[in-house]
């Protein structure tokens, strides 16, 4: 196998097909999007080159910043919920009864498509027939809110299914990382008299730190470009109070027929995601990784 991998032609053979594919479906569209963003274009007729007008307009568009704020809030929530996922994973990775079953239970939402999840939660949140409000009413709440219709609540009401949807994914990643820690370390710590909390804090956490960094990037970038569940459940409404950057991009391009502006938003979104990733990498950079074994 070593011989194969040192042969340049073979390397090219391996790399080229996927390289071509990824060029065609990722990098070329990115360049095109940036270019469309420089044009005034309704997506159908002729394009008019307007330079940076669309990008400049972005900076003074209150609706865009509003939706960017919502995206950031979602990123913040996903970031915080990672702590919860890690705790759950630690409990599951410890030898508790039924850990296998629980792991599967947490993972199941991941197997459902976003649209199915959206339909499910639409039923839960239904203002009069929904499960949530029925429970609240039976608990004596006289007039429970219409979760998806109230500007002040809708965003948080949407965060719950989104976080629930991805819980299994992160728990699984953490679980796998925790299972990789040699049992001997934990045993040694136990002999030295460390309690469960100390083991978790001093041994497990540092050892899965690299994985945690990756999940932070995944969660934050994923939140910034989040689209599907919000699109199905509220379509950014009511009155833009659950609009996020990606849904705003969609609305501008496909509803308002402003493809140039939509492309500008799309490209800007990419820039933000790259910038945020870079910042997170810088913030969490450590000089040397801890190796216990």
């Amino acid at each position: 196998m070593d011989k194969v991998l040192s042969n340049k032609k073979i390397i090219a053979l391996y790399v080229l097909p996927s390289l071509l594919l990824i060029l065609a479906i990722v990098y070329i569209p990115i360049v095109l999007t940036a270019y469309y963003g420089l044009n005034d274009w309704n997506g159908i007729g002729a394009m008019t080159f307007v330079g940076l007008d669309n990008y400049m307009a972005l900076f003074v568009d209150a609706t865009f910043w509003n939706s960017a704020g919502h995206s950031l809030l979602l990123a913040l929530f996903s970031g915080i919920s990672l702590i919860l996922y890690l705790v759950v994973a630690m409990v599951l990775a410890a030898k508790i009864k039924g850990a296998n079953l629980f792991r599967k239970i947490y993972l199941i939402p991941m197997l459902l498509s976003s649209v199915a999840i959206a339909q499910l939660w639409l039923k839960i949140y239904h203002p009069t027939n929904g499960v949530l409000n029925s429970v609240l009413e039976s608990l004596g709440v006289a007039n429970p809110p219409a979760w998806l219709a109230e500007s002040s609540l809708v965003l948080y009401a949407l965060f719950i299914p989104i976080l629930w949807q991805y819980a299994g994914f992160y728990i699984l990643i953490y679980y796998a990382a925790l299972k990789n820690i040699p049992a001997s370390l934990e045993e040694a710590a136990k002999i030295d008299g460390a309690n469960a909390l100390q083991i978790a804090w001093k041994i497990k956490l540092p050892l899965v730190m690299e994985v945690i960094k990756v999940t932070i990037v995944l969660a934050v970038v994923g939140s910034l470009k989040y689209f599907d569940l919000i699109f199905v459940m509220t379509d950014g409404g009511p009155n833009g109070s659950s609009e996020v950057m990606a849904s705003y991009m969609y609305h501008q391009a496909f509803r308002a027929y402003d493809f140039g502006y939509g492309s500008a938003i799309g490209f800007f979104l990419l820039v933000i995601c790259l910038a945020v990733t870079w910042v997170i990498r810088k913030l969490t950079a450590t000089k040397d990784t801890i190796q216990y074994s």
Partner: protein
Amino acid sequence: MFNKKRAILLLSICLVLVVAGCGKKSNEGTGGTNGESAGAGDKVTINFMHLWPEGVSAGQNKIVNQIITEYQDEHPNVTIKQEVLDNEQYKNKLKVLSASNKLPDVGVTWAAGFLQPYVDGKLFTPVDDLLSGQLNGKFVSGTTEAYAIDGKTYALPLEFNIAPIYYNKAIFEKYNLEVPQTYEQFKAVVKTLSENGIAPIALGNKDRWTGSLWYMYLADRNAGQQALSSAITGSDSFKEEGLLKAATEVQTLVDSNAFVKGFNGLSNEEAKSEFLNSKAAMYMMGTWELPNFTTNEDIPKDFRDSVGFFKFPTVEGGKGDINSWVGGPGVGLFVGENSKVKEESKAFVEYFVTKWGEQSVTGAGVIPATKVDTSSIELPQLYIDLFNEMNQASSITLFADVQMQANAAETHLNMIQALFGKATTPEKFSEEHDKAIASGK
């Protein structure tokens, strides 16, 4: 070197699979035809893209297939290839196909504002020659006009709709309510229902155009059809007194709990089910819903029998006429400018529109855009009544979001949601409209 060979083999298989995967689409929904018949003399294939999937619009889907089969029988050299998509997907696909100049030969379009960019981009071909041919004088007046831009007609309408308020007779009877003739009576009905714990009106304003219907009627009755029309076309302002009053009136209705709880977060489908389950007493919707209230076997007969309709009541001191309606043509058929089989496609459209007029009445229970003699066919009373109302209409104002250009329509719809959600004032509502319409996009 077994490994190397195996790796290359594996890689090749992957490639083949990827390529095969890419090439194998667009065959879905080729119901009833055998695909292309390339290279055989003067054989012609017409690609037809429409939005009546079997699962969603069973009645329409059946008619489409019937018409196509008949057409192919009469014209053995023509094959019609269908591509069927859901409403929202259809709109998106049409746009993507337009951008790459690969429109189908025949397709479905909406009127006015929706049509404009396609006409500007020279993607649809004018079909005026069809209007002077066999179809001359066959259309209900006012229908083809909505598809005309700068004196040329770019599509032929299939449906024509008006929007009445449907109501549940059983609920009205239970609370001794009369069909309201004036807006004051209407508000009294709302009050009684709401006090008795019945949601007066089913409204799914997540879809936004649903709320727009209510605003449009209030605007029409308060300010008159003329004022509303000129505000929409931009020759007058939405700050006109009657239009401002209409916006205020919307918020008064919201305050009196006229609409179902959480209406701004409910889709039209969800709201409709409140009405279908007799949980809400009234529901304003276009006549395309008629089959659900007349012939649809999936809905209990008891309910269907108890559905009536009334016209939006007149407002005291308002300039509107009770026979003035909000509505307009639904969808129409266009022929692609770049189609290689333009003449054949036009002939098919002509045939389709004629047949559709006859069959949609009996088959799907929708009101066609062509004149049909209904006296000889047995039809549900509700259908006949609405059909007659349409013929007596003093004016029909096209749905605002259809009339406006795409960008202004977005503003209108967003402002409607804000108005209903009390996130804006009537003044601000009018201001934003004027601004969006003035921008001309």
